[in-house]
């Protein structure tokens, strides 16, 4: 179980304050898989790191299985399986088996427990036949599976994953999702992702962050119902507020995918039910991924002209 109550965090970079999280609150129960989504820089990783006890929040409280992540950090660590975004976070010269045994040992497992648990997990993630191959020879998909195995090494009740399928091909990604799905049945899983198909497929609950604020939370179905039906509209020159809805170009026309109740000049092409990606696009600001600031209009105009 995870409880996040008015968590805030501000970073100071070269004298400038960056509000990474602003009074975020939500709860997750056992058996729930939650997708944490948002633009780059929306605060997802900061929140994962706060729950992992790796960053201390400025205000608010967060609890894992009823234990405070700041006051009881050492105890909380025992309850967590963490998968960070870094692919390099293993020892390249050691084999998959050795890497898992290493991390099992430092998490407190005895030598025999570490060996049997590492073997069991390698089999579970489908890497048993690669167990004696050095990590440096692993593909991205294999590396991510090994990272998942490491997160499960102590059989924790709570798993936190930061972009777990980043860089994976669609088949490996699908395989990975099935693994996470089976794990989530008796655990609490919180994962960040930019892949809306993945979140829609896996998550019982979605939390959307925008510039450090929680702007929506609910099941994928609830969120999709909130946006309703989408319409595809062919238009000549969308204004800047519509730029985020552009999905394509056709014969000098822009194709927009907008909520049906939105007034847009142009020819309606078709209507479709909203996807989670539509929810995300509709609810969040358009943010420049390199600066995390709203873009001014004009980029598409310049490009179109």
């Amino acid at each position, binding site marked *: 179980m995870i409880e996040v109550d008015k968590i805030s965090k501000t970073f100071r970079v070269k004298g400038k304050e960056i509000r990474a999280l602003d009074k975020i609150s939500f709860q997750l129960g056992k058996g729930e898989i939650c997708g944490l989504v948002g633009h780059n820089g929306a605060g997802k990783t900061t929140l994962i790191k706060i729950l992992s006890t*790796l960053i201390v929040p400025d205000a608010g409280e967060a609890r894992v299985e009823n234990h405070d992540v700041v006051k009881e950090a050492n105890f909380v660590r025992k309850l967590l399986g*963490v998968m960070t975004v870094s692919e390099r976070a293993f020892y390249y010269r050691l084999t998959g088996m050795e890497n898992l*045994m290493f991390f*099992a040992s430092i998490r407190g497992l005895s030598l025999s427990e570490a060996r049997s648990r590492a073997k069991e997990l390698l089999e579970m993630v489908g890497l048993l036949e690669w167990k004696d191959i050095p990590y440096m020879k692993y593909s991205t998909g294999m590396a991510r599976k090994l990272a998942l195995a*490491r997160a499960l090494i102590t059989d924790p009740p709570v798993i936190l994953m930061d972009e777990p399928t980043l860089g994976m091909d669609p088949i490996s990604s699908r395989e990975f999702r099935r693994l996470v799905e089976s794990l989530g049945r008796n655990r609490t899983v919180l994962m960040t992702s930019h892949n809306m198909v993945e979140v829609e497929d896996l998550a019982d609950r979605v939390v959307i962050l925008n510039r450090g604020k929680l702007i929506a939370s609910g099941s994928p179905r609830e969120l999709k119902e909130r946006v309703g039906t989408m319409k595809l509209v062919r238009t000549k020159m969308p204004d800047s507020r519509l730029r985020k809805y552009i999905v394509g170009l056709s014969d000098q026309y822009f194709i927009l995918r907008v909520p049906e109740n939105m007034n847009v000049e142009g020819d309606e092409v078709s209507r479709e039910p909203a996807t989670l990606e539509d929810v995300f696009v509709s609810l969040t600001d358009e943010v420049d991924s390199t600066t995390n600031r709203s873009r001014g209009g004009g980029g598409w105009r310049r490009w179109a002209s």
Partner: protein
Amino acid sequence: MGVLSKLYAYIYLRGFRIWSSYKTQMVLNVLSWILPVFTYYFVGTSLGGELESFGISSYTAFVVIGLAFQGYVSSTITTISQRLRNEQLYGTIEYYVLSEGGVLSFLIYSALWGFTINSVNAGVILGIGELLHVDFHVNVLSTLIVFALLLSSALGLSMISAGFTMLVKQGNPISFFFSTFTTLMSGTVFPVTVLPSWIKDISLAIPLTWALEGLRFTMLEGYGIGGVLGIVEVLLLFNAVLLPLGGWFYLYSFNRSRRKGTLSEY
């Protein structure tokens, strides 16, 4: 809890397995232990009896003890701060924070690998000393006491050095000082009595200076604990200051990084 598995993980897997997987580096490491002994042996041979006026009856014996134990301090300190930096670069530092025993356990077990590799280094150097007819008269108990105090003071300095690595990432002054100045200032290859008095005063603020003097007494002259009591007291004083200060600074640097969100930055 799980001490054996941690020793296996830190010393065998992360230490020996990775170190020995770089064969060329391994050979160069061993050469770097051996060659200085011969270099200084020939320096001593060419000087003949000139060193007796400085109270050194056998320069080879003097330098063998110096080189064998100097590495414990300098390389343990640099090994730990380098290790910490490597873990930041690999992205594994966060997994150590999450580990049982946390970052203190990381430091102690990492230091153990440093001590292990230096023990091999010291063993090789002392073995070469034996081949070069160094006349050892070892008092085991007093040697172990002085040696243990040297190791624990090195651990205290390592914690301060690692704390600097967490805070400044690169440009660690403690690591720089001990990797470059200890040979010059701590009586490793020549007695500190030849140094200008103000440098000599600084050298007395380094635990290694005292430990080397003590180890020469206990390993070459067979002094018992009574003979090196003054040195033991000074080393105890160093430990009383360095261990709590190092522990506090090391944990402070990690907690500060957690507050600032810079734990994995490098």
